[in-house]
């Protein structure tokens, strides 16, 4: 029964792992898969090219900047919304609000990029407002500062609802007896939130925070690729987009594989660390 999955995973996951050897080679495309073993070995030459490339160091910096901004905003927003939403006693209102805030999570970044361009592009709605106020049109998608803000903002828009339910589930799991005890002690709603709800959510908060650290090299390829353009490469080009442009589209497979390998090794170290931390502080186990 395990054979189909074992074979598929071997071919499409483990073979590419062996395929990273092309990062140490001058990969010969004409040899196909045999090129993995038979191309000319060049040692660290491709990595020297990667680390000598100012675009790569810029992309690395951009990756970290975008990820950290996303992680920090996505840490606080869902916690706050979950606490506020938990106060709503009218089930119809609560459920309707939940339904509306998760919806963007299920749409692709291609769809969302179309929508964002409609809003912020040169002929967008925001520029419609500007022109009715007699302001000059402004392309928010080609300005470094506003582009970064759009990345962070649209990421919150798409994902905060999804994370909110995880926290809502955690709040639902808190023993109601604790609230009764707090009320007997004269705690008001705010004090109950501070002394009962937040400590009750803490394990999940810690877990989510720790696990998000594992994704720090993943700045969101789908989102950036569908929104960025040459004028904002300076702040928006991340490792994944650079691998795609230079390695894949540029046909420099060995260079792309070297960048990818750097990313994969650092990524693995981060994910393993985050799992170990999660196990230690939150007793989290995957299986």
């Amino acid at each position, binding site marked *: *029964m*395990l054979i*189909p*999955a*074992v074979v*598929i*995973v071997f*071919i*499409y*996951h483990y073979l*590419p*792992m*062996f*395929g990273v050897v092309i990062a140490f080679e001058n990969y010969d495309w004409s040899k*196909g*898969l045999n090129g993995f073993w038979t191309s000319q070995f060049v040692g660290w030459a491709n990595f020297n090219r990667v680390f000598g490339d100012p675009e790569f160091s810029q992309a690395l910096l951009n990756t970290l900047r975008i990820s950290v901004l996303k992680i920090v905003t996505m840490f606080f927003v869902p916690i706050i919304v979950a606490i*506020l939403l938990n106060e709503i006693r*009218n089930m119809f209102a609560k459920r*309707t*609000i939940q*339904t*509306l*805030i*998760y*919806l963007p999570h*299920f*749409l*692709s970044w*291609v*769809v969302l*990029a*179309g*929508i*964002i*361009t*409609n*809003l912020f592009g040169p*002929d967008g*709605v*925001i520029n*419609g407002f500007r022109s009715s106020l007699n302001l000059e049109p402004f392309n928010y998608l080609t300005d470094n500062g506003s582009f970064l803000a759009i990345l962070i903002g649209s990421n919150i*828009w798409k994902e905060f*609802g999804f994370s909110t*339910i995880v926290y809502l589930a955690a709040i639902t799991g808190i023993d109601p007896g604790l609230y009764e005890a707090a009320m007997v002690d004269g705690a*008001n*709603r705010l004090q109950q939130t501070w002394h009962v709800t937040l400590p009750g959510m803490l394990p999940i908060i810690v877990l989510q925070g720790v696990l998000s650290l594992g994704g720090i090299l993943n700045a969101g390829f*789908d989102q950036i690729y*569908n929104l960025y353009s040459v004028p904002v490469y300076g702040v928006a080009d991340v490792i994944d987009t650079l*691998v795609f442009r230079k*390695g*894949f589209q540029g046909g420099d497979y060995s260079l*792309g*594989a070297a960048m*990818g*390998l750097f*990313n*994969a090794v650092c990524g*693995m170290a981060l994910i393993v660390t985050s799992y170990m931390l999660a196990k230690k502080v939150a007793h989290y*186990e995957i*299986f």
Partner: protein
Amino acid sequence: MRKHGNLNRSRGYDIFYGINLIFLTLLALLCVAPLLNLLSLSLSAGHYAAAGKVTFWPIEPTTASYEIVFANKVFWNSLGVSVERVILGTSLTLVVNILTSYPLSMDSSYFHARRYYLWYFFFTTLFSGGLIPTFLVVKFTGLYDTIWALVLPGCANVWNCILMLNFFRQLPKELSEAAVIDGAGHFSILFRIIVPISKPVLATVTLFTMVGHWNDWFGGMVYMSTLSHYPLQTYLQSILHIDLTQIALSSVDFRIQEKIQLASSTTIRSAMVFVTALPIMMVYPFLQKYFTKGIVLGSVKG
């Protein structure tokens, strides 16, 4: 002394409650407002949309943009590819994951190598060869520019597998034990007993795989070289930043060419984006139900 029945209801709290309800309602509306804008744009006259005048209600409503989209052969073709991909990809994922999860849900005392297989699959989530080596393997195993490139490499999904095996593990053991006594083999236990009572987890995995396949655009961009093999999302991605009035002009139908007067690149793009998002919005009510279930299932540890 406060009255007992009213312990957590003060005047200040009532004010907070009102403000909170208004705030969350506005927040929820803010989340869907861009979608409403999209729909309005797609139904508006071209020159208003191009001037950024359309907000939440169509101006000079027209269906011209939709007619242009529906008259485009490439659109229908890519829609067909997407539907084929969703059906093929979801069935393949389901079969492979059911087959994989069943042995892995067994006790280690019965299936000694369980741990090694779990790690074999799990390791792929920690480390990957990356875009380029994966592309080369797909290319040189003959999947390039075929629908299999979009469904085969990702069908053995570890997270789906973990979700399923955790579900299988909490099923009552007596059921399969009774079947063993009756002389049933593993295949008949799995497909006659386990699968029929595992509908919740199967529904969760099915819906999420369908949405994943429908939404994926990157696979189509990387692995498909022929335009007629593009799934809808990839096709949409490829025309996101070009002047779409060309699509109408390329139509042989004179009536469609005339529709251009009423549309603009923005309205045509909006119509196309809306049509692409529509299936998701239609299955969304089911998704939401099973999504919450999926979280509960995922947290059940055997």
